[in-house]
C-alpha cells in the first residue's frame, strides 16, 4: 500500500469527516463521485480514494483535473493488488483521524446538502446517543453509452423508514452506504468492516452498528444510489448487487447462519424453541404461498373480465360518440338553422345524457378495478413480506433436518 497524494497539510488536527471512496478501473464514474464530494456545501472533510488494484496511471489521469479544487483535502491510496471492498475501506479508515466517517462508492453521489445536514445532526448534543445517521435516497437508473452516462429514470428508494429498527434491518439491508454517516468511535465498539465478506459487508456492518446504538434518520432524499440497468453480467461498470446476485444470496444465508450459530452456541437451550418457531414459520409460509397463488389467479381473472367489460363499453359508446360528432359538425356548419330544430336539440340532449351516463358507468367500473387491484396489491405485498420475514425460520428448519430425522427415527422405535 502506498499513500500517493498527501499534499500540503493545513496543520489542523484533522477534518471533521473522512470520506472513503473505493474504486477500481472505473474512469467514467469516478469523476462524478469526485464532483459529488467537491460540491458539498459542508467543506471540512478529507477524501480517501482507495485504488483497490486498478491501474495507477489511469486513476492518476482521472484524478488530475480535480487536484486543484481538492487542494489538501485528497489522499489517494493505491493497492497494487485488490484486497476487496471492505478491506479497502478499513485501510482508509485506519489512515484517517476524523470524528465522522462515510463510505462514498465510486458510482454514487450526494445532494450538496448531505454532509451539511448529517454532520449538523450528529453534532447536536441531544443526538449524542446515535451511532450514525442515514438519509433517504433516490435510486438513479442509468446506462453507459460510449463516454457518456445517461440517466434513464430516477425515483425514491426505500424512502419510507423514519427510524431504523433492529428487527427490520436483520430482515435485509435498508440503505446503501452512500446514505450513512457514522461516528468513528463506533469502529472501536463494533469492529471494522468484515474483510471476509466479498459482498454485503455494508449490511453486516450496519447490523453491528444498530445493535450497539440507534441509527437516526433524516427523512430527505439527500443521497443518490446509482445503478446501471443494462449490465447484468460482470463488467467494470456493473453494480455488485446485480452482477453478483448469486453471491449476494449465498453470503446472505451465511451471515444469517452465523448469527444463529453464535446465538445457539451461547444459548444451546434455545434450539427447541427456535425449532418450534421455525416449524410454525415454515407452515405459515407455505399457507401464504397458497394464498398468494390463489389471489394472483383470481386477480388475473378479474382483470381479464374487466378488460372484457371495458372493450364492451368502448364498443357500445362508439356509435354514441360518432353520433355526437355528427351533431357537433352539424351545429358548427349549419349553426342557426339547426338550432331552430327543436327535435334535433332534444335528440342532442338525450344523446348527451346517455353519453354522460355511459361515461359515469365506465368511470365507476374503472374505480372498482383500481380499488380491487390496490387491495390485491396490498394482500400480495403482505404475503411477500411475511415470506421474507419467515426466511430465517425456514433456513433453521432446513438446517435442523438431520435432527428432525433423528427425532422421527427415535419416535418410530418408540
Amino acid at each position: 500500500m502506498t499513500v500517493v497524494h498527501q499534499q500540503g497539510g493545513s496543520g489542523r488536527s484533522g477534518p471533521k469527516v473522512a470520506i472513503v471512496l473505493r474504486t477500481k478501473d472505473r474512469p467514467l464514474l469516478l469523476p462524478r463521485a469526485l464532483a459529488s464530494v467537491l460540491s458539498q456545501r459542508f467543506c471540512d472533510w478529507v477524501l480517501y480514494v482507495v485504488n483497490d488494484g486498478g491501474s495507477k496511471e489511469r486513476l492518476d489521469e482521472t484524478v488530475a483535473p480535480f487536484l486543484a479544487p481538492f487542494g489538501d483535502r485528497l489522499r489517494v491510496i493505491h493497492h497494487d493488488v485488490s484486497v476487496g471492498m471492505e478491506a479497502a475501506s478499513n485501510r482508509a479508515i485506519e489512515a484517517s483521524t476524523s470524528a465522522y466517517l462515510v463510505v462514498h462508492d465510486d458510482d454514487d453521489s450526494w445532494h450538496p446538502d448531505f454532509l451539511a445536514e448529517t454532520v449538523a445532526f450528529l453534532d447536536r448534543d441531544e443526538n449524542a446517543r446515535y451511532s450514525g445517521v442515514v438519509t433517504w435516497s433516490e435510486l438513479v437508473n442509468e446506462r453507459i453509452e460510449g463516454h457518456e452516462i445517461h440517466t434513464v429514470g430516477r425515483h425514491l428508494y426505500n424512502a419510507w423508514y423514519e427510524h431504523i429498527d433492529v428487527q427490520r434491518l436483520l430482515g435485509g439491508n435498508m440503505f446503501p452506504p452512500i446514505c450513512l454517516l457514522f461516528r468513528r468511535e463506533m469502529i472501536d465498539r463494533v469492529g471494522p468492516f468484515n474483510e471476509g465478506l466479498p459482498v454485503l459487508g455494508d449490511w453486516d456492518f450496519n447490523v453491528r452498528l444498530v445493535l450497539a446504538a440507534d441509527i437516526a434518520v433524516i427523512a430527505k432524499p439527500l443521497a443518490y444510489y446509482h445503478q446501471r440497468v443494462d449490465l447484468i453480467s460482470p463488467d467494470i461498470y456493473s453494480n455488485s448487487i446485480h452482477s453478483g446476485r448469486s453471491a449476494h444470496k449465498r453470503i446472505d444465508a451465511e451471515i444469517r447462519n452465523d448469527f444463529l450459530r453464535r446465538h445457539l452456541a451461547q444459548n444451546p437451550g434455545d434450539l427447541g424453541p427456535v425449532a418450534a418457531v421455525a416449524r410454525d414459520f415454515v407452515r405459515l409460509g407455505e399457507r401464504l404461498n397458497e394464498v398468494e397463488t390463489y389471489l394472483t389467479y383470481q386477480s388475473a381473472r378479474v382483470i381479464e373480465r374487466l378488460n372484457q367489460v371495458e372493450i364492451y363499453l368502448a364498443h357500445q359508446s362508439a356509435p354514441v360518440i360518432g353520433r355526437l360528432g355528427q351533431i357537433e359538425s352539424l351545429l358548427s356548419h349549419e349553426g342557426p338553422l339547426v338550432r331552430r330544430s327543436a327535435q334535433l336539440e332534444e335528440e342532442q340532449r338525450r344523446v348527451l345524457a346517455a353519453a354522460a351516463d355511459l361515461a359515469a358507468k365506465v368511470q365507476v367500473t374503472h374505480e372498482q378495478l383500481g380499488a380491487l387491484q390496490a387491495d390485491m396489491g396490498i394482500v400480495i405485498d403482505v404475503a411477500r413480506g411475511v415470506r421474507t420475514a419467515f426466511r430465517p425460520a425456514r433456513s433453521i428448519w432446513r438446517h435442523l433436518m438431520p435432527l428432525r430425522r433423528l427425532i422421527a427415527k427415535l419416535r418410530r422405535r418408540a
Partner: protein
Amino acid sequence: MTQSISDAGWVSPGALLERFFEDARQRRVASFDVFDTAIWRQVAQPTHIFALAEQALLEAFGNDVARDFAQARVDAEMLARELGRREHGHVEVTLDEIYAVLPRFWPRSPAVLLQAKQAELAAELSHARPEPGIQDIYSRLKEAGVATIFVSDVYLGERDVRALLVKCGYQAGDPLFVSSEHRKAKWDGSIWDLVTESLAVPVADIIHIGDNRRVDVDVAIESGLSAVHWPGRSHHFKFVAPVSRSIAPLSSLKALNQTILEAPEDEEVRWTKLGRAYGTVIFGAFLRWLADRVGNGDVDHVYFCSRDGQVLLKLWRELIAPHRPVPTASYLYVSRRTLMLPRLDSLSTQAVEFLRSGTERRTVATYLDRAGLLDDPEAVARAESLFGSLDKVIETPDELDAVQDCYRSLARELARTARHHREIVEGYLRQEGLFDGGRRIVVDLGWRGSLQRSLVDHLKRRNAPTVLSGLYYGLTREAGVNRGSAGWMDAMVSNDFMDAATDHRLRQMATILEQLHSADHGSVWSYTAEGGRVTPVFRANEVEQRQYERSIRPFQEGAVAELRAIFKGGHPVAVEQLDPKSAWAALVDLCLYPSPDEARALGELRHMDGFEHAGAGVPIAASLPDLSRHEAEAALKGHTWIAGSLKNWLANHPGFRDTVRDIARSQNLDDRWTSQFQ
C-alpha cells in the same frame, strides 16, 4: 376631488401636489397617508424589512437562531390577521399579536423573540426616508395655517409610527391615527368617523393624499372626503415571493431605483432600471464567486466564452482584475456549431440530431449550410436529386427524416468538412493558448457542460497537456451525462446534484439568463485564417440585434454603472453582499415571481431558433388569447418562460384565473409559487 395619473393622462407629481395644496388651503385639514406617501422605506417592499431584521439577528445570535425569521414573520402576520378577523372581527392586527403567533413558525425563546421585534423596529427606523415632494407641501401647508394629520393602516403602534415620522422631519404634535391602535381602518372607511369626531371637523373639510388608489382615494371619497392619489415609488409588491436576508441587496437596489417619476418611463429607462437592480446582483455575485474560484494562484488563464461571456469579461477587466491577483483572461469565440462540426465524421446520433435540431421550417439549402456543405458540388447535386430543389421547405416529420437520410448518404462529404473544420477550430484554439498546458478555465452560463466536453475532446485528441475546468452559473441534471469526460465543472447557484424542484427552477432561470447575457455580435458561424491569424466569422440576426440594442444593452449598461458605484465604495450595498445566495434570491424574484411589468417586458424577448439563431424567433413568454386549458397548454409549449407566460395571461385575461391556476399547479413547483396566480 380625486386626481391621479391615470385619471387625467400623465400629470407630473409636482402639478399633482400643487393641486392638493390649493385644495387643502380652502379646507381645514390636510391628511397624509404615512407609508409610501409621507415616508418611504429604502427597501423594495415592506416585507423586506424583515430580511434586514434577520441580518441583524444573524449578527447577534448566529445562523441557527436567525435563519428563516423573515419568512416566518410574513407567515405569522398572515395568520394573526386571519385569527383577528375570524375570532374578534378586527380590521387590523397589532405587532404584539403578530409576535404572539410567531413561535408557531419560528420557535424561539421569549428573549430572542423580543430581540427580533426590536430588530424589526430598528430596521424600520433606519430605512425610513422622507418623501421630499410631500414634505415640501406639508411645510407649506403648515406655513399657510392648514392643520395637518397623518392616517395609516398599519400593524405598528402609534408610538412606533410617530418615531418614524419625527425621524423624517415631520412635527411630533400632529394628530396621528393608526389602525392597529383603534381597530378602525382606512380600507373599510371606519377610521374616518374617528378622525372627524376627534378633530371636531366635518368630513368635507378634510382632504387626504395617499398611494393606494382604492383605500386612500376610492374609500375616502365614499366616506365624504376629498382625496388625491399619490403615484408613489413602487406599485408592484411581490407579497408571495420568498423573503430571506439574501434578498437585501436586490431590495436596496430596487428601492434606490424606485423614484417618483417626473415623466412617463420609456422602455430604455425601464431596462436600465432592471439592469441596475437585477443585473447588478446577478453579474456582481457571479464575478465575485468566479474570482474566489480562480484567485488562489493555480489557474493559468480564464476564457470567457462567447457570447454570454462578453459582458462578464468587460466587468472582470474593469472591476476584478485590477484589484485582485487573478489569472489572465480573454474572450473565446466559440459556438455549438464550431465545436460540433469537427465531430460530424462519426455521424453519431448526437451529431445528426444536432444538424436537424430546431423547430422553425428550413429549406434544404439551409440544412446543407448548417453542415458546411452548401459549397460542396457533390452534396448539392445529391440534395437536388433527393428533394428536387435546394429551395424546398422541409415541413413534415417525414421530410425531416429524409434530410437525416440525406446527411447519412453524404457521410464522405461530411467527414471531409469535419476534417476541415477540425483543423481550423484547433488552429483557433491553439492560437488562443488552449493547447499550451497548465490549468485553464472556461466561463459560460452552463446547463449541460457540452461546450467544455467538446473542448476537452479536442485537447485529448492532440494529447495537449492542458487541464481544463469549467465555472458556470448553473448545471442542470443533464450535465451528469458529461461528468465522466468533461473534467471538473462547478456552478454558482445550482448543479446536477440538486433535487428535481431546484433543477426545474434553474431551467426557468436559464431562459432569462441567456437573454440578459447576449453580446453585441452575431453567433460564431466559422473561422477564417488570414495572415497567420484565425478570426471568427459571425452570422448576425437582425431581430436579435434590434433586441440587443433596445433591451439588453441598456440592461447591461445599467448593471455596469451600478456595479462601478458599488465597487468604488460608499454605496448602500456592500460588495460582500453580492454572493451566490443573493444571486439566487434575485433570480427567483425575477424569473419565478415576476411583477406584471417584468413579465411583460422580459416576456417579449425573443428566443431564436436553432444553433444558428435563425428567423424572427418566438417570445419567451406566450401572449395567450382566450383559450381553453388544453389549448393554452399546447400554446405554451413553444415558449420557455412559464411564470412570465402565466403572469401575462392573467394580466390580459383576468377571467381565466382558474385555468391559469390549474396550469400553474401542474408545473411541479411549490405551493408558494402557485399561489401567486390565485
